[in-house]
Every structure is written in structure tokens, then in C-alpha cells.
């Protein structure tokens, strides 16, 4: 593990390990409590394999009541808890703690209710993202957010991370598609927020829960909205001589009032990597490739495809191909979807970054990244959710070369700081976790962070849920609760009053 400092394990918790395991076995019987090193090993990291840590114990509850009892026990005994779905986090959100219970939600794997008339599905948190779509596909419905890990990642994890995907610009992120949750607080208390209806009528607690990275509670049930799958989808490939020209095309499409179902950009290195990997038929002479997908009723899609082609031609695109069959559309996407494994083929290891920028800053950001690439002596390719400005630079390195991981991490941090500098943010869809935790002060000052932490204090005053994630320093809630306000004067006395 490189340079990451986690909260110091509590010696008293470590010393009581045997007792804690016995107590947990009384709550979750049988195979639901895992305490041998060999069996805990698969849980030692999530999608960020550079960070590893064996937990104190792994608990796999299968009922909400068990979750409630485990959390109440942890709360009463001062034991940290790290919730985990499928462990696909790309920010280390499910990294275990040496003194912490790793609470795996994999046994919550049932779909509880499918309601086509109200267009909702109620699922347990361990159901996979794709599992929801599969369950409703026979009626032509689907669940819209589609993170690239959708075959494995769980809906509970999606709620924790506010996961995105390639269709976010048109269909929203997890937060725009979740209608309700059942959640257990660290006290063991169970609350229900939302349901099959829209909005809360008051404070939007559900909106706070989504994307809270397991720091506020453990979700035990999720209600999502499902949508009718678009009647038709067609994609256009547009190749450009420069990333500026491709960026201008993206801006022009949106300025023309078109919101594509997906709009992805790949740079030259990624186009070549994808082509070498599976021969997607991408043009190799372009500096930037756009995939623009239009979906909806057939008449609309055909009409808009023509408009996009017109816009592309007007902006000097070198190649333009519109899919004429479903096979061809899938082939256009195949290269993009294989971008990560394709890089895995040309480099032993890579770091996948996840910043968002105002789209207009793209040429500047790409240029600065090239300079960084030279400075660090590491190659870097780019795939870009162009519609919403979400950038995924892939930094190539070799973990077997001493010091190269640290160099790649420094390069990655520089990219994220650049994203913030141009008006963007540290993470668009992967979460802060441990990976971007120490960069938070680049975006937020102490007062901003203190207000976020006070929210944490309302839910979890002893900071037992997923400590060491998201916040660079967790202040004690008592300290955050004090108020230092003085000054008894009437405000701005020079103003007229009524």
C-alpha cells in the first residue's frame, strides 16, 4: 500500500477479537461469520487492488434484523463497520479496516417486487445492477444507470456510490432513478425513506443517502424506477483531426438541442489500443473518435442521426459512419467497452482516474495531461463521457518497477487537481473512498468539510461507519458541535430597513 494513512486500529477492539467473533456468531449463525485468514482473504480489497487490508472479521447477514443487531452491537462496543456490496469500488470505498467488521451484503440477493403498472422494482441491495434489467426485460423495461461493472456491481453499492454509466446525460445517475430505501442506522434503528411515490414532500434525506459511500447507514432494500427500453438505438462514429474539433462537435450537438443517449470520446492512443485488441473497425488516422448514440422512437432517431451527421460534416470530421443495423451499433460500442482490457494488453498495470470537467476545458486539460505524461514518463490514454464532461484517463505503469505505482498515483493526483483548477470536480462517478480522500481540501475548505461532517454526526456520532473514507480528517462530533459566534451589532446598519 502506498502512502495511505488509515485511522489507527483500536487496540481494545483487536484485543477482544475472539469475544467479538463469538458474539457476532450468536447474531448471524453458521457460515455468516468468517474469521480465518484464508477465508477472509477474498475480502481484503475491492476494485482498487493497490490497497489491501484483512478485516477483523467478515459478517454476511441475510436479514434486515441481523444487520440491525450487528450494527447495534458494533455501536455499543465501539467497533468500526465497513459495508460492502460486490466489492467493485474503484475508489477503495470497501477497503476493510484491521479493527473493523466487514459487512458483506451479498446474501441480500432477491428481487422483492416488480410492478410494471407503477414502473418500479423493489430489490435487496445485493442484487446486481444488470440483474434488475434482466428481471424486467421480458416486458421491454430496463434500469437506466449502467456502470461498466453492471454485470457484477450491486444496486446497494450503486446507492452508496451514486453510480453513473454512459447514459447519464439523458437518463441520470443512480440518484435520479432511486425512489426509496430501507436503511439501518448505526444504532440498529431501521428507517424507510421514499417508496413507489416521487419526492419526499420535505427534506430530501434519500438524496443525501445516495452517494454517501457507506458512511451514513446500511441500505437493506432499494426501490428503483424502471423505464421502457427505447424502441430504436443507432450510433454514429465520427473521427476528427483534433480533440478540439471533436469537442466542438459535442458542444454543437448539445447547442442544437440534441441530448444523445450516449456520447463518448476516445483519444488516439485508446482508438489504437481498442483496434489492436479486437478490431472494432475504428479509423486509425484520427486524433479523436466520437461515438454518438441516439435512442427513442425510430422516426426521431433517424431524423436526429441526419442532424448529427450534418453537424459533424460542418466541423470537419474525417470519417463518419452511421450504424444501419443492431450488429453494427454493437460493434461501434465494442471497442469503447473493451477500452480498459485493451489497455491491460499494452501495459502490465493501469490506474483509472475519474474527474469531471466543464467540457469546454477539454483541449486545455488534454494538453496539460500530455505534458504531465512526459514529466512522469508514463503513458496515458483517455476515454471521456463527452456529454457530461466525465474524464477517465488511464495511466499505464508497471507495478514490478519499484516506484512506478507511486509515480502513477502522483500523476493521477495531478490530473484531478487540474480538473478542480478548471472548474471541475475530483470524481464524477467512482467516489472519493480512500483514493481521493486526501485531495478533498483542493475542492472544499475547512468550513465546507465541517458542514458535510456534521451531517455524518447526525447519523453516526461515533464515526463507526466506514471511517477513514471520504474525509481526510474525521473531527470529533463534540468539537464540530460547538459554536463560536459573537458580535451583537445589528447587521449592516447602513442599509434601509422596513
Amino acid at each position, binding site marked *: 500500500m502506498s502512502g495511505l494513512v488509515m485511522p489507527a486500529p483500536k487496540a481494545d477492539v483487536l484485543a477482544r477479537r475472539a469475544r467479538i467473533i463469538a458474539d457476532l456468531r450468536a447474531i448471524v449463525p453458521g457460515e455468516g461469520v468468517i474469521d480465518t485468514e484464508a477465508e477472509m482473504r477474498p475480502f481484503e480489497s475491492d476494485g482498487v487492488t493497490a490497497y489491501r487490508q484483512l478485516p477483523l472479521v467478515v459478517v454476511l447477514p441475510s436479514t434486515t434484523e441481523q444487520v440491525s443487531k450487528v450494527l447495534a452491537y458494533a455501536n455499543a462496543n465501539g467497533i468500526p463497520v465497513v459495508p460492502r456490496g460486490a466489492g467493485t469500488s474503484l475508489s477503495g470505498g470497501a477497503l476493510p479496516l484491521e479493527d473493523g467488521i466487514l459487512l458483506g451484503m451479498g446474501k441480500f440477493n432477491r428481487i422483492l417486487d416488480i410492478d410494471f*403498472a407503477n414502473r418500479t422494482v423493489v430489490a435487496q441491495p445485493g442484487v446486481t445492477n444488470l440483474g434488475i434489467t434482466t428481471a424486467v426485460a421480458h416486458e421491454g423495461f430496463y434500469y437506466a444507470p449502467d456502470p461498466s461493472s453492471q454485470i457484477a456491481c450491486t444496486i446497494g453499492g450503486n446507492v452508496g456510490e451514486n453510480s453513473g454509466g454512459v447514459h447519464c446525460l439523458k437518463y441520470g445517475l443512480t440518484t435520479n432513478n432511486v425512489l426509496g430505501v430501507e436503511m439501518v442506522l448505526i444504532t440498529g434503528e431501521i*428507517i424507510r425513506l421514499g417508496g413507489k411515490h416521487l419526492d419526499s414532500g420535505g*427534506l430530501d434525506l434519500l438524496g*443525501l443517502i445516495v452517494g454517501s459511500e457507506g458512511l451514513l447507514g446500511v441500505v437493506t432494500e432499494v426501490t428503483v424506477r424502471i423505464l421502457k427500453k427505447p424502441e430504436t438505438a443507432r450510433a454514429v462514429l465520427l473521427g476528427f483531426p483534433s480533440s478540439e474539433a471533436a469537442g466542438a462537435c459535442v458542444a454543437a450537438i448539445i447547442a442544437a438541442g440534441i441530448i444523445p443517449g450516449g456520447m463518448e470520446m476516445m483519444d488516439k492512443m485508446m482508438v489504437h489500443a481498442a483496434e489492436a485488441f479486437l478490431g472494432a473497425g475504428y479509423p486509425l488516422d484520427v486524433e479523436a473518435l466520437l461515438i454518438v448514440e441516439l435512442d427513442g422512437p425510430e422516426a426521431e432517431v433517424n*431524423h436526429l442521426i441526419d442532424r448529427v451527421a450534418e453537424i459533424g460534416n460542418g466541423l470537419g470530421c474525417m470519417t463518419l459512419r452511421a450504424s444501419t443495423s443492431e450488429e453494427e451499433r454493437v460493434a461501434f460500442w465494442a471497442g469503447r467497452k473493451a477500452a480498459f482490457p485493451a489497455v491491460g494488453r499494452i501495459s502490465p498495470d493501469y490506474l483509472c482516474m475519474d474527474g469531471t470537467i*466543464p467540457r469546454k476545458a477539454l483541449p486545455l486539460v488534454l494538453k496539460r495531461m500530455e505534458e504531465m505524461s512526459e514529466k512522469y514518463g508514463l503513458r496515458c490514454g483517455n476515454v471521456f463521457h463527452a456529454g457530461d464532461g466525465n474524464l477517465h484517463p488511464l495511466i499505464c505503469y508497471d507495478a514490478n518497477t519499484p516506484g512506478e505505482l507511486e509515480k502513477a498515483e502522483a500523476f493521477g493526483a495531478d490530473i484531478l487537481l487540474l480538473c478542480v483548477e478548471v472548474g471541475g470536480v475530483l470524481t464524477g462517478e467512482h467516489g472519493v473512498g480512500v483514493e481521493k480522500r486526501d485531495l478533498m481540501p483542493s475542492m472544499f475548505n475547512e468550513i465546507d468539510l465541517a458542514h458535510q461532517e456534521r451531517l455524518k454526526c447526525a447519523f453516526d456520532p461515533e464515526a463507526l461507519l466506514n471511517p477513514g473514507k471520504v474525509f481526510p480528517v474525521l473531527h470529533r462530533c463534540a468539537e464540530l458541535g460547538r459554536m463560536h459566534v459573537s458580535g451583537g451589532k445589528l*447587521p449592516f446598519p447602513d442599509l434601509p430597513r422596513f
Partner: protein
Amino acid sequence: MSERLCPRDEADVVEAVRWAVSNARTLDVAGSGSKARLGRPLQTDATLELKGLSGVTLYEPEELVLSARAGTPVAEIEALVAASRQMLAFEPMDFGPLLGVAPGGGTLGGLIACNLAGPRRPSAGAARDHALGIRAVSGRAEAFKAGGRVVKNVTGYDLPRGLSGSYGTLAAFTELTIKVLPRPETVETLLVLGLDDAAASAVMSAAVGSYYDVSGAAHLPAEVAATIPAIAGAGAAVTALRLEGVQPSILHRRGKLEAMLRAHGTLSFLDADASRDFWQAVRDVTPFALPEGGDGETAKVVWRVSVAPMAGPHVGAALREIGARCLYDWAGGLVWIEMPGTEPHSARVRAAVAGAGGGHATLIRASAAARAAEEVFQPLDPITGALIARMKNGFDPGRVLSPGRMYAGV
């Protein structure tokens, strides 16, 4: 009458809250005051009137983003984005007509603080879904920010969303950044006439669950439909399905929907202009409007109920028994209820919502006495209530920001 504090910038807002905190005074956090009659009545020492913090600070149509100070009139923002053929896609309703105040008075801060939405809510989201970033002053007299200016952002807790619907009880917004979207090129509305509430609910469900991108689905029983000029001529209950987008697409979808729904009732149709008038009337619930300057104290009570779409008619049926009138939006999931008189019948409304599978009911228009005596917002279970009180402790420990506007003591 309580004092009005009229800050000019964020520093003034900090100063005003500092004064309130150190002198144990309370503030009614307001924009222009257009929604002063919403929520539990306040008795504060002063009104913090944010309308002086006005003006759009950033608008980049190609980036689909707009920032403005909290007191900027919504009407100004809508006119500005319309000039670039864009819109606030969540179609924020204007409470003016229902509350008997001049229309068009709302501010951007109020729009987010009350999480407004309109008929496009099921497909496009509410204000919460378009709030990207905020600057605000908490009850600690501290200015803070959260979120950002890009649509895809998971950096830290989603406070812009969490504070939407907080009615000024946790923080006073000073500047907000929202997502804007292209305006549809044109609009048409397909009408199905003469359906009862349950049949309308089934038709709306089928239409919204079809391939044909219905961006509004409302049902108006005959006595309610008769009050909207665009459809009064129908002389029957009206179930309306909105189609928006490019003309070739609308033609195609309308044809498909007509074929699908012909067997259910007489079909009719509204062109673009009539559609715009009609959906604005639905958005602002004009059938239950109070004349401008009308007395909210003696007006008929109005409730706003959100339930699962198919459950809307169950709520309607339970309340029409006592002479209430209903207007259904959101494919049946949003039920506007006008009571026969000034009595809220809270227990009956809440039982109807619970009996329909749950949701929430908000007492929108009622006398100040009724809004003080009854729960205005959906009552909280004790655990959630305690959680919200702890959030209030975190953000406003001195209880200076609109205390009690939503819940007693918070």
C-alpha cells in the same frame, strides 16, 4: 410586524445570521416572500429577505449550466434560457395562483428550497435532480459550498440535493448552480375523453409505460376540466398525454398512441399553443386557484399528495366522498385535492394516503390557525424525526433559521 433584513451579498447574510445567533433572535428565511403562506406559520423576530442577492452569474448554454444568486427571479432565468432555446426541464410550478399572490414572483433559492416540480417530473425529475451546486449560510453564521458546476459529481455528500426541500430551515442559500436542458422544438397533446379516474389511471400507465416518450400525463375529472379554457369545450373528463420533441417524432408517436388508445374513449387533440396553455394550467393547478389578493384564511383547503401512480384514484375516491375535487398529474401519482371548505380533514387525508400504499401529503392552502394546529408536512416516524432534529443541531444549533417552518421545534 417583524423587521426586514435585506442583505446585498453573502457577507451581509453571514452578518445577519451572526446577529441573530448572538442575540437569540429568529429569522424567517425568504426570497421574495411569494411562498410565505406555505408551511407552518412562523413567528420570527426578523425576515431575512434574500431578493437583493440577484443576478445570473454564469450561463453557458453548451455546457447546460447556469448559476445565479439566490434571489434571482425564476421568471428572469426562464426568459434568459428560453432565448437560447433551453429550459428548466423540471418545469417548476408557480404557487402564486394557488396561494392568491401575484404569479411569477418566485426566486431561484425558493425554487430549490421547496423542491418545486411540474408535470414533467416523472420523466425529467424535480428541482432536486437539477441542483448541481450551492453556496449557503448555515445557522452557524458560516458560508459554505457544496457540489459543483458539472452534472456528474460524486465528490462528498450531495448537499445540493439534501438541502432541496429544506424550506430554509438548515441554511439560507446565497447562490445556486443548476442544470438546464434544451427546449423541445414543439409539443402536442393527445386527449382521451370521458374516462373515470380508475380507467384514466390505467390509460396513463399504459401510455407512460409505452415506447412513445410521454412527457406529461394528467387526468381532470369533468368538473375540474370545465375550468380550464383549453379543454372546457370537451364537456367531459379529460385525460391528457403530452408529446414533445421534433415534429417527425411527435407525428409517429401520436399515431402509435392513437392506435393504442382508440378503444378506450373518444380521442381529441391540442396543438402546440393550446398544449402550452393547458400544461401551464395543470402545473399551477389553476382549477383550484385563489384570485390574486384572495383571502387564504377563508379559502377552500388544498392538499398536495404524492403516491404510487396507480394509487392516485384510491386517494381521490376516499376524499371525493366528502365533496373534495381532485386533479391528477404525474400519471396519477400527484393528486391535488381541493376540500369543500376550510376544514383540512387531516386525519382523513392521511388515512387515504396510508390506505393507498403510502406516500406523502402536504397541507398547501389553509388558514394560519390550521397550519399551526395540524402537521403541514407528512408526519415523521420518531426515528427519522430525531435524525432530522440532529441535522438541525448540526446546521442551526441556535434554531435561528425559520424554526418550526416544517416541524415544531426544528
